[in-house]
């Protein structure tokens, strides 16, 4: 049972790292970016190329994946996304779905459609005995890295100037802009970091979630669930939502295999019926 909990936490934290960029993007600019999963996929494949084809050490490849994906995100944001911010949600959906289709097909063309496996360093394979339980080393790593990231994010948001500017801009972009906060710049940086985090999550998650060109389509719903259930006005919301979903999914698939996949969808539908703004959104959230 504890192993289920452990695995569920690992899965949930991974989901969080993957989805938090989307949450902030949505909360900040009210922009529905369904192509978020494509950045995750990019991070996964970049790491694959670095580690498998070029012998870069796994731990070095991770930050590179983060950076490269962040840069890709920044470029896309400045050249493409910026034209779509003011458009209605339907247009944003169409636009980002179009990007997803393009990325899926492009990756299929370049890398092939089979599932890929990143060569993990030996020290990460197998299990380790922690407090009397045998836990997977890789999953332990995920919990550690994602935990550190979460703490870092919370620190940045709560204790740095950039963080307070970001929170102000999420709260009310017009007022923030009136106070001299360069909302567009804040958003550009946030989008880049969010995409980078997605890339990092994709790299970390390749082992657990599987890496193939259909990744953005398969996992789109998961990211959206995290964001909708968790709300977009903080990162604690998505964090708790991710844990809830991660544990729920792993537990569901273990205890009731036939219906395991439904657990996540059911949680989502129930939450949305009960609280359409998500579990943790403020009453005045958009």
């Amino acid at each position, binding site marked *: 049972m504890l192993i289920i909990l452990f695995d569920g936490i690992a899965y949930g934290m991974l989901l969080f790292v993957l989805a938090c960029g989307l949450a902030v993007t949505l909360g900040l600019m009210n922009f529905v970016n369904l192509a978020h999963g494509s950045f995750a996929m990019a991070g996964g494949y970049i790491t694959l190329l670095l580690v498998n084809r070029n012998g870069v050490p796994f731990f070095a490849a991770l930050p590179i994946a983060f950076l490269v994906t962040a840069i890709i995100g920044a470029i896309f944001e400045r050249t493409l996304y910026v034209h779509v911010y003011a458009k209605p949600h339907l247009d944003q959906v169409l636009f980002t779905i179009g990007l997803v289709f393009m990325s899926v097909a492009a990756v299929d063309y370049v890398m092939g459609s089979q599932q890929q496996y990143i060569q993990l360093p030996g020290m990460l394979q197998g299990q380790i005995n922690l407090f009397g339980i045998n836990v997977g080393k890789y999953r332990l790593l995920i919990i550690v890295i994602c935990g550190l990231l979460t703490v870092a994010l919370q620190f940045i948001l709560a204790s740095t100037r950039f963080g307070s500017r970001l929170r102000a801009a999420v709260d009310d972009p017009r007022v923030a802009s009136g106070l001299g906060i360069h909302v567009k710049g804040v958003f550009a940086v946030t989008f880049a970091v969010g995409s980078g985090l997605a890339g990092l999550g994709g790299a970390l998650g390749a082992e657990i979630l599987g890496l193939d060109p259909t990744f953005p389509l398969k996992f789109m719903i998961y990211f*959206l669930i995290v964001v909708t259930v968790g709300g977009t006005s903080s990162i604690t919301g998505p964090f708790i939502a991710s844990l809830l979903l991660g544990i729920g999914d792993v537990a569901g698939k273990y205890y009731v295999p*036939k219906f395991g996949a439904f657990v996540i969808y059911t949680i989502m539908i129930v939450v949305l019926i009960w609280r359409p703004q998500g579990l943790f959104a403020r009453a005045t959230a958009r």
Partner: protein
Amino acid sequence: MSQPLTEDIGGYVAGRARWHPLEIAFWIAALASIFLLPNKHLILTEIAVLALFALSLDLILGYSGIISLGHAAFFGFGGYVAGLLAKHEIVTEPVLALLVSGFAALVLGFVTSFLVLRGSDLTRLMVTLGVALVLREIANQIDWLTGGADGLQGIVMAPVLGLFPFDIAGHVAYVYCLIVLFAMFLLARRIVNSPFGLSLRSVKGNPLRASAVGISVNGRLVAIYTVAAGYAGIAGALLTQTTQFVSLDVFSLERSADVLLALVIGGTGYLYGGIVGSILFKLMQDYIANLTPQYWQFWIGLVLVIIVLVGRERMANWSAPLRALLARLGPRAAHGVRTARPSPAARPSAADGP
């Protein structure tokens, strides 16, 4: 009360639903395609099915403002019901099976309609997508009934109305689909030109004010969502009946995205958008698939991106003259179209009102 004003307004209101010559020309052309394009009946059948599906999406998206990323839920549900009815010979006559499947999808629509009443656009996206994926998962799990990932095999269709067996070349299938499309279109046309249809447009435009003038917003949304689900179910059933096969991909995100794209290409809110868009979409898809069979999704994605970047308003303006013509007839929720302004003094139709 001035008599000229009464005549003008009376004539205008009556004229809104009158059949425009272009419409009549369109349907005559469709009828003619049965005889003039016998080699193309297979793809024309696909177009007709997609057109009906897109029409159903227009009812909720174009007329009522509900964004759905999971409309395939009803399409697929209707498809599977039709498949099961045929395979297990519960209802063998296709038209009857079609009605049963449509009704089943209608009920599903009603049951899930309350999910789209509350919350923002994003919530609706989520919930509709979630429902479609849940259905897909259910279909996947109960593979003893649905055939799972392999699809429902062994469907054999009985003759339509007991008289017209489905032929390999697809002629009967096409005529069948075209007639169903036309009939459903007539019904939809009636609905959108009714006071109910007008209230839908008001709900889309300003739900607050709609409620303040006595319209039950939730009631209307539930009603149209239910009807649209039934339409989508019929479209799905048509697909199953004409291809004698149904599998999990009828519920997929790609299916919902394709119909959304088809509708957007053609334009929302004037009923013909789904049909026009489906023709364009299928032709485009066919052309691209011939060039790059494996990666055509890339080009479809590119088209989506370009459409949005160029702007749907701008695209609507390019076709403005055509749309102004269509706009003058009946369903007129088209984006960016300035109402054609007939001068009150000289309105030839006012004199020969119904």
